[in-house]
Structures are given as structure tokens and as C-alpha cells.
């Protein structure tokens, strides 16, 4: 599928226009709807609809040395004589699937290869939270709050994002949901957010004949109580009604997607159904427990392999489901509180480490590659002589996504006291727009030609515009292979 497609855009446009009318209460405005309307909330790099973000946290410190194995670094094999994924050319049945000549995925993660080949799957390696704690609980808290200089922090980065941007669907009572028993810290502070372990059973039990009356009674009591229970009850009541309109049990995934039969697969499938119902859910939090493998890690066929198989199958199904046909714009971020020790221990496991890798999946993600500034795994290259060093702050990745894909420029609020460096995690939404006027028209032809022939001249003539907007096919180079795509864009094909 072409990267320039915009999944679900037209629906969002329609929604926005409809809601605009609802709010203004003036049907006559319809004839003169301003063209900029759906963009009113949007930051510059955003194209036409915000992504729904799915934040997946691997609790317990997942081993990036397995799921994105640095087979090109000899020190990897020195430090992990038994717990390493063999080189792609090793002939070993567990040989890595080559991602870029240096990193590889274990073979059981092969369901993700189509998304990778399609450019929708990105690994960011030697990445993480630079806090030096090797405590799971401290590290998770710091990472999820993303406000390390504030000892009194109580809200999460995704919670602050939602609190500082307007709802995609005004009045939607469920902007964010955690498929858990409680909201994870990442989402704390979000308005209209609830933890819901199972969407299809979210209703009031007891005697069926009095459900309506009892719900009314609960509303009366909880309207008279202070927060947090008041808001929780109000949101709960509205969401009971909302979810009753969605057929979760009968949901048929698109794109021949088959979700794994596991808690994670079930959560993701229900999340897809929720997203596609277009109620306007904007953020979904999913936790996967059990990545703390101090013993019997099992990267080939043991516990870690099982968990990564489940993760890969779930992500691949979600990607296929949401990309097929009239899909939806989405971004999935997968992270873990820290990585594991470079060297294996004496229990066929690994102890707590430092740097890690993030997985980012989405139809506007500049994927198909491993983004890294690899520090090396020799003992002297390691953090404190033990662990993978961090060369990319995880907030760089999140901040770019928040600004470019979630259309929220309040980065100072969401990531306080931090200046993010955008590292090209998201695709430019301005492909073909070489004169930076917000559209792709014949007026862009001269700029395209200049960028193709002489990038420096283009920069000189178009300050502030990115010559990579001429990289239509997204292969990182501006060359003849971009001409056909550009021509098609101009002609509207």
C-alpha cells in the first residue's frame, strides 16, 4: 500500500464537519465550510487526521538483544554465548531475520516482516530512559510520568497529551482506555479515561429488570460526591451506553488478520474493534507482564520466545486489520522500563540493564529500518561497563509522535524540562509539497526539479522547507525513482 494514502481521513473529515455543524448549530454554514476546518487543532506536520495511539508497555524489562538482535556486533556473541540469536547466515534454525545487515529479529517474529518491508515498522535501538535506576518500579514510574525533575509528578505523558488537546469527537466519554484493572501511570491525568479489562462485559449486573433504575440511583449518589469518584462514575455511566452500541463479540477483523488467542491478542482485537467503531477513542494502553527473565530466559523456544511470538503475531494482526481497506491512522509504541544486562548470568537468564529498544508501528511511521546511534557492546562501550548505553532518549521518539502524529505541540507540558531531538521517526506528511504551501499542485514542479538536481540550491531558495519532501517513495534518497510518484500526485492519480 502506498504510504501517501491516508487511512480513514475522509471519515475524520466528515466527522469533523458534522461536529462543527453540531456545535455551531447552523446548518446553513454547510455551504461555506472553510477548507481548513479539520485542521484547526493540528500542528504543522500532521496530515489530515490524528493517529490513534496504542501504548504497549512490556513490564519487567524486555530483552532488546533478542527482539532486535545486533548480530553485526561481535561483542554480542562474546557476552551471550548461549542466549544470543545466531547470525542470519549461520544456517541455524534460530538464525536472525536480517533487518538491515546489522540487526535482526528472531525467526518467530516473522509475522512482522510485511509491516517492516512496507515501511510501517521501526525499531529504535540503544534507546531508553537515561535515569540510572535499575529498579523496575522506579524506572517505570519515571518513564511513564516522563517528568523526572518533578518529584511530585502524578500524571503520565499520554495523560498530559490528552489533557492538553481537544477531543477528536467532542463529547466522547472515552478518549482513552486501558485494557487493565487500573489506569497505568502513562494515562493518569487523561480526561475521559477508564480502565476496562473487557469491553464486551462492561455493564451493570444484578437484577436485570432494575438496571435502568439502579443506574439512575448511582448517578444521583455519585453526582453528589467529590472527585475522583464523581468523574469516574460519570465516565463509567456514559461508557456503558457507548460500548453497548459496539458488537465486540461479532467483530470481524479486516485484512485477513488473525489475532493470537492470548490476553494480549484479545486486548488488541477489542482495541481494533473500538477504534473502527469511530467513537473517537484516541489512546489505548495495554500492559504485558512478565518480561523479567533472570532465569531460563528461553530466547529460542522458552518463555521469552513465547512472549515475543505473541507480541509479534498481535502487532502484525493489528497492522493488517487497521491497514486494510478503509483503515484508520494509528501508531503503536512498544516500550519497556529498561533493557537487560549485555552479558548473560549463570541462571540462563539476564539481570537488569540500561539501554533498550522501542518498537514503533504505524502507517505514517518512517519504518522499515532500525534507527540507532549504536554505541557498541564492548565492555568499555557499555554503560557502567555492564549495559547497553543509551544514545537516543525515549522522549525524542514520543515527542515527535505527539507533535507530528497526535497533532499536539505542547511538548513543554508533556515532556517538561526536556528539549526533544526529532530523529525522523514519523514520515513527513508533506511529500510532494516542495513550495510548502500546504498542497501538492503543479506549482511544486520547479521546487521538485531543483531538489532533485541540487539540494543545496533548493534549501537556499526554500528556507524552512524540507527537501526530503521530494523523496516520494520514502527510500531516503531524492532521485529518479521519485519522479513517477510525484507525477502521479500532481495528476491526482
Amino acid at each position, binding site marked *: 500500500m502506498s504510504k501517501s494514502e491516508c487511512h480513514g481521513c475522509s471519515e475524520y473529515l466528515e466527522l469533523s464537519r458534522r*461536529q462543527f455543524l453540531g*456545535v455551531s448549530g447552523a446548518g446553513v454554514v454547510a455551504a461555506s465550510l472553510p477548507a481548513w476546518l479539520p485542521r484547526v487543532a493540528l500542528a504543522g506536520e500532521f496530515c489530515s487526521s490524528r493517529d490513534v495511539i496504542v501504548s504497549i508497555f512490556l*513490564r*519487567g524489562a524486555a530483552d532488546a538483544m533478542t527482539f532486535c538482535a545486533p548480530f553485526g556486533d561481535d561483542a554480542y556473541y562474546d557476552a551471550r554465548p548461549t542466549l544470543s540469536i545466531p547470525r542470519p547466515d549461520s544456517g541455524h534454525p534460530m538464525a536472525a531475520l536480517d533487518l538491515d545487515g546489522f540487526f535482526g529479529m528472531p525467526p518467530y517474529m516473522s509475522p512482522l516482516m510485511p509491516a517492516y518491508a512496507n515501511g510501517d515498522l521501526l525499531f529504535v535501538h540503544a534507546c531508553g530512559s537515561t535515569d540510572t*535506576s*535499575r*529498579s*523496575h*518500579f*522506579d524506572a517505570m514510574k519515571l518513564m511513564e510520568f516522563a517528568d523526572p525533575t518533578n518529584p511530585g509528578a502524578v*500524571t503520565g505523558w499520554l495523560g*498530559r497529551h490528552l*489533557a*492538553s488537546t*481537544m*477531543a477528536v469527537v*467532542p*463529547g466522547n466519554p472515552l478518549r482513552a482506555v486501558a485494557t*487493565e*484493572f*487500573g*489506569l497505568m*501511570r502513562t494515562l*493518569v491525568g487523561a*480526561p*475521559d479515561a*477508564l*480502565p476496562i479489562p473487557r469491553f464486551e462485559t462492561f455493564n*451493570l*449486573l*444484578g*437484577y436485570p429488570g432494575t438496571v435502568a*433504575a*439502579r443506574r439512575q*440511583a448511582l448517578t*444521583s*449518589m*455519585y453526582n*453528589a*460526591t467529590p*472527585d*475522583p*469518584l464523581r*468523574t*469516574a*462514575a460519570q*465516565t*463509567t455511566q456514559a461508557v*456503558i451506553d457507548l460500548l453497548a452500541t459496539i458488537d465486540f463479540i461479532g467483530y470481524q477483523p479486516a485484512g485477513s488478520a488473525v489475532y493470537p488467542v492470548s490476553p494480549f491478542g484479545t486486548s488488541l482485537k477489542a482495541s481494533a474493534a473500538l477504534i473502527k467503531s469511530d467513537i473517537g477513542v484516541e489512546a489505548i494502553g495495554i500492559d504485558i*507482564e512478565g518480561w*523479567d527473565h*533472570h*532465569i531460563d530466559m528461553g530466547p529460542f523456544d522458552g518463555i521469552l520466545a513465547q512472549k515475543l511470538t505473541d507480541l509479534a503475531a498481535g502487532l502484525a494482526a493489528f497492522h493488517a486489520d487497521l491497514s486494510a481497506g478503509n483503515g484508520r491512522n494509528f501508531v503503536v509504541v512498544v516500550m519497556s522500563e529498561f533493557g537487560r544486562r549485555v552479558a548473560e*548470568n*549463570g*541462571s540462563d*537468564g539476564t*539481570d*537488569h540493564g540500561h539501554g533498550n529498544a522501542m518498537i514503533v508501528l504505524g502507517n505514517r511511521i518512517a519504518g522499515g529500518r532500525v534507527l540507532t546511534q549504536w554505541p557498541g557492546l564492548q565492555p568499555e562501550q557499555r554503560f*557502567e561497563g555492564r549495559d547497553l548505553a543509551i544514545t537516543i532518549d525515549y522522549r525524542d521518539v514520543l515527542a515527535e509522535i505527539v507533535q507530528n502524529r497526535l497533532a499536539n505541540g505542547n511538548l513543554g507540558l508533556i515532556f517538561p524540562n526536556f528539549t526533544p531531538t526529532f530523529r525522523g521517526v514519523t514520515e513527513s506528511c508533506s511529500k510532494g509539497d516542495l513550495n510548502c504551501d500546504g498542497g501538492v499542485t503543479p506549482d511544486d514542479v520547479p521546487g521538485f526539479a531543483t531538489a532533485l538536481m541540487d539540494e543545496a540550491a533548493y534549501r537556499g531558495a526554500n528556507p524552512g522547507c524540507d527537501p526530503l519532501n521530494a523523496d516520494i517513495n520514502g527510500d531516503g534518497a531524492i532521485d529518479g525513482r521519485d519522479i513517477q510518484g510525484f507525477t502521479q500526485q500532481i495528476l491526482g492519480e
Partner: protein
Amino acid sequence: MSLLKRLAQQVGLRDEARAAEAVLSRRKLLFGGLSSLAALSPSVARAAPRPSANRFLVDRLTFGWTEAEQLLADTLGYHGYLEYHLNPAAINDADCDARVAVYNRLNWSSNGLYDSLPQITMNQVIESTIVRAVYSKRQLFERVVEFWTDHFNIEMMKSFNQWLFPVWMRDVIRMHAMGTFPQLLAASAQSATMMFYLDNDTSVVGHPNENYARELMELHSMGVGSGYSQQDVEEVARCLTGWGAHHGFGEASTFEFEYEPNKHDNGPKVVLGTNIPAGGGFNDGLTVLSILGAHPATAAFISRKMCQRFWSYDPPQALVDAVTNTYLATNGDIKAMLRTLFTTLDPDTAGNKLKRPFHFFVSAMRATKTEIAANPTGTGSPLRDQFKAAGHEPFQWGPPDGYPDRVDAWADAVLARWNFAASLTNHNISNALINIPAFLQGATTQQQIADRMDQAIFGGTMPTEEKAVILNTLGASPNNRTIQDALGLALSAPSYQWY
């Protein structure tokens, strides 16, 4: 409608000028909104005021206020009632003991348990934990047991622990719950269950496993950021090499704690600046435990956590200091710490706490005198399913930090509370039934029944708005249906979620 929601709706912008204006007011609203996240801060007021110090003490020392406990507190007075609960051995608990006696596996040895079906063992442990919380007269003891099972969290399903859990509860947690903290710490370390849970059974000389050593310092004793280093973690791990449990396949295994000298690192170590000379053997680990048990950071960490559990989410530093001083003066005497905790500050100054689901469920069953049918040979029950559905079944928390005790961890999930109350009072939980006529004590009219619910559940403090809803639900001529619905709503009332 919340500020943030209003903000969201407000942004139905008509033109760019208004958009710019809205950004400004949005900022204002936003910061107002975020600071009004007082919802998340600890000192949230509950709907009903706290009538007396004795009432406070009943709320804090038990798994739910009852008329009988209030009567006892009023009879013995604040200090007398505190002392009564601080001496659980002196409390006649025959009724509860009889209920628990059917759970025969709680008395078995490790070896016998390992020869038996673990599903039944786990069910006995979980069910007996609920039964004790509901029926035991030693209420503070049970609350302290819960506190330590969170503090020294062990996930029941991991490794051999599904077989061994009764031994852990009996010989470590319950045996030392009201002893001294250093004894409890040492017992937890010399437990097969803990060794399995945090992988120390695999830690051997040359290849120490850091998992237990880290959590021992971070979660069990000193607390994170209290001055130990990664180097200390590694040295403690070395001291504890060879600590594990006797187990294996095809041989007679005791599944008891075991020290294996040939797996121990006998070189010299330095832990928190203390030299531990070479050749110490098993004593290396004991030395570590005694350093940690006596460390001021441990005293402060345990005291704060105890104050957070039993006093308020954000206890005054003066209270934490007082309890810490008691720890240091008494070598961590848990009863003495609790005595200090409850006798240093005015109870009126303590903030309210939100009942966690386990606490709420148990309090509802206590207030309604629910009869739980024991099923000692079963592997599950409808009542257990209720705890599962709320995400708070005992001993199921995976990570070693234990079930959280924070408002934001539990406040959003009100539906699980409503559904428990509705299911309980509608007699949908077949092994937990309320005798409604007995509960009503002869009340028949709308007002009498509402008053009875107010008295038995709230001690007569039910807020007017909530009581109005109960009266309305009962109707002018109450019948079984309206009474059951009203009782479910009374237990679901927001003020009943706090203590």
C-alpha cells in the same frame, strides 16, 4: 462535567480569531485542570464526616466498620481498643478458627503439599484469606498480614509456589506479622518460596543472580534511592549465593529452604561499607540481613510505608519520624510501631483512604453478615471470581512490589464495586449469601429499613443525598426486590468506598 471535558467541548471553534483566543483560555483552563487533579492527590475528602476518634480507629484497625466493633471500641476506649487489637493472641477467635479448620492444607508440610494437587491448595489459601478477613476478631492482625503480603509480595503461580504457599503464609508472614521486622525479614529470606520467587535458588558462585539481592534492598528493607549502589547489589548477591531450596527431580525433595556451601562465593565482600571477610559461608547472608534489619534507611522506609497503609496516603513527616524512632529503639518491634502510629497525632488530622477492592468487598460482607460457604476441596468459587473481576484476588500480583495502595490505581474502576454489591445483594454469588430478614432486624417500613441500612453499614453517618436515594429505591411499600436493590445501592454508595 469536568473542567477538561468542558474545555474539550468549548473548542467548537468558529473562526481563527476565536481559535487563538481559545488557545489562551485553554492554557488557563488546562493549568487549572491539571492542578485540579487534586482528584489524584491523597487528601481527598469523603462525602461523610468522621464522627469520632473511636470510629477512626475501628476504620483503621479492621477490614470494615461493624456495629459490634464500634461497641467494643466505645466500651474499651481508644487506647484500650488499640491494645486489644495489638494482642491478637488474647482474643478468643474460636468461631473463625472453626471456619478455617476445614482448610486442612494450611497445616501441611512442604513435602506433603508437593505431593498434592496445587489448585486445591491455592483455593484453600485464597478462600481462607477471605474468610479470615471477614470473620476473624483479630482484625488488626489480618490487616497487618495483608500489609506484609503486599510488602513481601509473592506471586502464587510462580515456580513451585503454587504448592508451597501455605508454608510461606504460616511460617513466615503469619508467624512474624506482629513480631519484629528484622525477624520477619530474616524469615522471608530463609524461605523456599522467596528463593523460588526471586530466583535466588539459581544464584551460584561466579554467576550470582541479582534479582533477589536487589529487591531485598529496594523493596523489602532500605527502599530505592536510600544510598546503596549497583555495586552493593552485586555484593549482596554474592553473599547470598548458595541460598535456595531443596528440590530436584527423581529424588526425595523437602522443598524447604536450604543453604548449599558448594554454591557459595566464599571470597571477601563489602556491603554498604562493611567488610565481610572471606570464608564466612552461610553467615555472609545472615550478616547482610542483620545490616539491613538495623539500617536507619530500613527503619524509615518501613515506617513510612506502615503510616501510608494505616494512617493516610501522605502521612506527616512528624508521624513517620516518630514511628521510625520506635523502630530504632525497639529493634523493629511491629506492635510498638503500630502503637506509636496510632497515638502520636490527632486522628482528626488523618486523611481518608479509598478502600481497595478486597477491602471494600470484605467490608460489605462484614456489614451485611454475609455467610460464606467453605469449599475446601474445590478449585475455585463464584466469590473468588468476584475478586478476580476486580483485579484484586489475593496473591495474584506478578511483580514484587505488591498490589498498589494508591487512589489513582483503584478509583477509576467503580463498576467492579457496583457489580460486586449488586451481585452480592441479588444473591448471584452462590457461596456468599446474606440473610436479609436477619439483617433487617424486624424493620418493615421504608424509613425503618433505610435507617437500618444506615445504622448497620454506615453507623448512622450516611449522607442525606445517599439516604434519599435508598428511600426512593425502597419505595413507599418495600418488597424483596426493592430491599435487595436498595441494599446493593447502599453498599455502592460513594461514601462507603472510603475509610
